[in-house]
């Protein structure tokens, strides 16, 4: 096994070569190479840099945004932060990011690491490093074919957290029953802090169709929700055993960002709690530091194309999609919608989740709907079941069309058509799954990550 310096050297050479061939900033190859040379690469590198403050962020939705929020605030304060902004959140991606940040002696000249980490990869990463805090945002159905079952993921987390000592603070969503339960089950020596929203900010009385964990993690009785923010996230208690979260940190009214959507309020709240705990930032400082924050690519990212406001909102699982649709409904003016459904490896092969998305508001509010992607027809079929109108082949355009719906697997042409057919000044809202988001962005912005 190669020692650290040798691994870093070879790794940096590969970074250079990969840069030459232009495979994109988010390339995970350098990390892959480093890990194959030295499987303890991450552990050794972090040990070489003991003063780094480390925050890990995980959950089904919101990792990238929350990671960016934390990094943004700390950098606004003048700190040097290493983060995996491009969203490469598996072990090889993290190894790559650390490799690029370190010199040949294995020194990382930074104050802190802020890393998003894939739900399944977290337990493994915890064997390599001990973070100052782990932010756990939520747990929803996502890529069931890749992850098996949701309960299995939280069980793995619980197991990993039982090995923590007092150094790591758990920053947990107290409005998500399964996440709250992680705190309840963590040992006495583990500091646990909950974040959430005030009940008054939660608009719903009922759980969404995309809701999963609705049974008391303690006694399995059905949980009572006094208010629901979205999906299964809300103010809950158990009427049988009395389980109820207490001491939930909520944002002061003065802390605001430009982000819209309830789920983003959770992301901001989590980010603020994390920097307060790990970096001792004070609330009044925080409002200043958040000024000017813009979300990452594909998450509420807005671009101006030919006089149309094009918004890309990543939609990769039922709760994320429902939230994206609710954002769309808050926008004014004529709206065309482009839904792009892929089922490649990063998206999850199983597409049954689209039947747990509530498309009624989309069908009601969009003026025109365009459907594309590898599984465009399945998505169009889903929408056919919402509109009740059949979809037929048009020989002239060579597209399939229904009432207000156009289906095509030629993505560039369809995006072009959507933009053209939307009145100038109007909005084109794109709802892509993950790989589709990368493609759409490439087409729309002429840029590749």
């Amino acid at each position, binding site marked *: 096994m190669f020692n650290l310096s040798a691994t870093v050297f070879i790794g940096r050479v590969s970074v250079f070569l990969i840069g030459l061939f232009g495979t994109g900033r988010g390339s995970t190859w350098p990390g892959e190479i480093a890990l194959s040379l030295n499987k303890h690469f991450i552990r050794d590198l972090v040990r070489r840099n003991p003063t780094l403050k480390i925050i890990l962020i995980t959950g089904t939705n919101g990792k990238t945004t929350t990671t960016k929020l934390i990094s943004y605030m700390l950098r606004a304060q003048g700190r040097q932060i290493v983060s995996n902004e491009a969203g490469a959140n598996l072990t090889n991606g993290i190894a790559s990011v650390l490799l690029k940040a370190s010199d040949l002696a294995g020194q990382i000249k930074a104050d802190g690491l802020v890393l998003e980490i894939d739900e399944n990869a977290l337990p493994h990463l915890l064997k390599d490093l001990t973070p100052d805090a782990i932010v756990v945002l939520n747990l929803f159905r996502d890529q069931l074919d890749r992850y098996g079952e949701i309960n299995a993921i939280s069980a793995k987390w619980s197991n990993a957290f039982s090995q923590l000592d007092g150094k790591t603070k758990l920053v947990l969503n107290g409005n998500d029953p399964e996440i709250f339960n992680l705190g309840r089950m963590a040992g006495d020596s583990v500091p646990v802090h909950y974040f959430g929203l005030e009940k008054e900010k939660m608009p719903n009385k009922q759980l969404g169709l995309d809701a999963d964990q609705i049974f008391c993690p303690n006694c399995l009785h059905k949980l009572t929700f006094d208010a629901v923010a979205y999906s299964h996230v809300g103010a809950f208690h158990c009427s049988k055993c009395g389980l109820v979260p207490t001491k939930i940190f909520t944002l002061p009214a003065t802390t605001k960002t430009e982000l819209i959507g309830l789920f983003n309020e959770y992301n901001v709240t989590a980010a603020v709690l994390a920097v307060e705990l790990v970096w001792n930032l004070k609330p009044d400082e925080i409002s200043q530091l958040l000024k000017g924050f813009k979300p990452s690519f594909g998450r509420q990212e807005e671009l101006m194309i030919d006089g149309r406001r094009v918004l890309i909102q990543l939609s990769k699982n039922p709760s994320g999609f429902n939230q994206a649709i609710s954002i769309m409904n808050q926008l004014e003016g004529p709206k065309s919608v482009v839904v792009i459904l892929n089922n490649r490896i990063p998206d999850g092969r199983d597409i049954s989740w689209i039947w747990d998305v509530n498309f009624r508001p989309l069908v009601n509010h969009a003026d025109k709907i365009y459907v594309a992607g590898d599984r465009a027809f399945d998505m169009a079929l*889903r929408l056919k079941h919402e509109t009740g109108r059949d979809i037929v082949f048009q020989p002239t355009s060579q597209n399939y069309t229904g009432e207000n719906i156009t289906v095509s697997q030629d993505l560039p042409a369809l995006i072009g058509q959507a933009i053209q057919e939307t009145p100038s000044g109007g909005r084109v809202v794109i709802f892509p799954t993950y790989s589709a988001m990368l493609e759409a962005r490439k087409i729309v912005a002429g840029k590749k990550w």
Partner: protein
Amino acid sequence: MVTNNLSLKLGWFYPDLMSTYGDYGNVLTLQNRAAWAGIKLEVVKIEIDSQPVTSHELDLVFMGGSQDRQQSIASKDLIGDKRPLIQALMERGVPGLFICGAYQLMGDYYLTAEGETIEGLKFFNLYTKQLPTDNSRLIGPITIRSELFPNVPIVGFENHGGRTYIGSQAKPFGRVLTGHGNNGQDQNEGVIHQNFIGTYLHGPILPVNPVLTDWLLKKAIEIKYGPTAGVQFSSQDFERITREHING
């Protein structure tokens, strides 16, 4: 859009507990294709604490899949409380669709990876077991040929850790063309008993296989009203085109 006087009631068992993989899509498809054929379909949700329902009130049965924790809660209620209802429905010839976890529960037993035996309803002649080292789930797109539909393959997506073995006298729902099926060995998929179909096919199965949806509706009409002369089911063209575009 009701153009005739036909109406049906669909009993959806445990919509909260057992509805993990887009199963709502199966219910929505039944409602829509019924409506598009001029049939009024009402969905009756049957939970643990629901008001009791008699077998004659239901014309169709559906139960979806779920995760282990929820499945064990449902199975206690199914065996303890709902068993006579399901039995009466089955014996009346009422058509039913049981997906994944529901399919397993209708069998004799389920043997977990830890060696625990979970009793089933024993209506389907089959048992399911999980391998001791449960790292190998049977996951992926699947295509089967069912005797019920000799000209149209049924397509779906499977994702199950359990391996199911049907009895020698039991009839499979279909034979595997591509994919794993019940256990990845005997090429059987699912089971059919009376007019109850058990299957591992998610997708969900009904939207993209209207031939099966319409079969369930037709059977329900027959049992309730007699032969279905005059019922016009809507086109299956777009669904066929959708299947043709599945990349697998």
